[in-house]
């Protein structure tokens, strides 16, 4: 009798939960109507349809710094942008590019466990975010977490990339996409600079290849920046210098062979077995290193 009563209660509770879940999905008749409205059939008679449907992405600059560490290259503080330079950056253009540059430097410092330097670079990024008016993207809990995990390389990386994602999200939702594009540009320029310094010093094949692999990311970066070409002379100069750099990448030989990928359903994983190769001459390597160095020098001065 008692057991039956418990069973009934379980059954009743279970049905109640089920019904409430079901009703939760059904309650917003209004929402559903709104959703319908939002993907209503578009009147194709109008020609003024504009889609922003192709997006160009860049690999995280932290991955480039990882490859430097993986290749057992020694840490070199002198290649980074010194935090003291921050006082030189007075325009939004300079501040945005340098917040990207300092972010990549911070990743490099983190990978090499340079804790005191990590603190000073993070302070500089906070300062620039205030000057750019994007400090709201830096939620207090992110700052607290970064300060708490300053000596934990993996956690710090998660919070650092989280910070840049917050910047990106904040800038996109506040219609300041050009600032976001410059931050991305600064991050990429610094990562190529760090790679090129490592490659010229060590002639390490892995690093040299990683430089050659920047052809498409560079093309993508130019695509990301090009809508702002006429924003200012600074913008057009930067894009022109990147286009000039892209010509050097045209001299690199690429080969690609497709192979059937291997799928592991249980791990929700695909092993992409296709192979690519990069052949880059010493001339092109040096020219790329010189050109990226010149572009960076104009930004950091």
């Amino acid at each position, binding site marked *: 009798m008692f057991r039956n009563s418990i*069973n009934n209660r379980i059954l009743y509770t279970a049905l109640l939960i*089920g019904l409430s879940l079901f009703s939760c999905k059904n309650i917003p008749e209004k929402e559903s109507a709104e*959703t319908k409205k*939002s993907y209503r059939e578009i009147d194709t008679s109008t020609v003024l349809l504009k889609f922003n449907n192709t997006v160009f992405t860049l690999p995280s600059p932290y991955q480039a710094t990882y490859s430097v560490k993986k290749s057992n290259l020694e840490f070199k503080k002198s290649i980074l942008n010194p935090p003291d330079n921050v006082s030189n950056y007075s325009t939004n253009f300079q501040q945005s590019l340098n917040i990207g540059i300092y972010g990549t430097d911070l990743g490099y410092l983190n990978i090499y466990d340079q804790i005191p330097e990590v603190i000073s670079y993070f302070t500089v990024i906070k300062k620039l975010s205030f000057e750019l008016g994007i400090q709201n993207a830096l939620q207090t809990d992110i700052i607290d977490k970064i300060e708490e995990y300053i000596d934990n390389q993996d956690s710090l990386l998660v919070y650092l*990339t989280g910070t840049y994602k917050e910047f990106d999200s904040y800038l996109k939702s506040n219609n300041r996409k050009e600032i976001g594009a410059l931050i991305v540009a600064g991050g990429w320029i610094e990562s190529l600079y760090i790679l090129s310094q490592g490659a010229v010093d060590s002639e390490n094949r892995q690093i040299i290849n990683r430089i050659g692999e920047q052809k498409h990311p560079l093309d993508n970066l130019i695509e990301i920046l090009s809508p702002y070409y006429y924003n200012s002379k600074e913008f057009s100069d930067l894009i022109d210098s990147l286009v000039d750099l892209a010509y050097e990448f045209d001299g690199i030989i690429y080969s690609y062979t*497709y192979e059937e990928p291997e*799928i592991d359903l249980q791990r*929700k994983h695909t092993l*992409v077995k296709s192979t690519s190769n990069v052949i880059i001459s010493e001339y092109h390597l040096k020219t790329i290193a010189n050109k990226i160095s010149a572009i960076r020098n104009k930004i950091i001065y």
Partner: protein
Amino acid sequence: MLKILKHIALTIISTLIAWSANSQEISIKSCDNLLNSGFVSDGQEYIAKPDENNKATFHATFYGGSNYRVVACSDVEEIPLILTVYDTEKNLLFCNKSYDYTSYWNFTFTSTIDCIIEIEFDHEILIQNEVMLLIGFKEK
């Protein structure tokens, strides 16, 4: 009889919970939650409006020797998203349609490869809502 009813009730609930969880995981706001298991965001949120074929296209480079997670989201709960990854020669590397429209998939690349990622609303009617792509990486 009671046992059968209990079984039916529990089946209904688990289905509803699974459905509810699935619809939550694909919203743009909660998309981030799928970048877990040690994957670190590349620091960007890639948002696009689909074209006249309900499709948004993303160009990405994946480094050889690295692990990635690719996540696709939208705020339209009722319509599944097709997530497809091609190389630049349009050889198919992955499509989630064969895997119950899963919102994310993991990849390991033997070599560095430039890819084209497409996210598409699987619906005949043109949808104006944005779609979001997130890319996470894992180096170790």
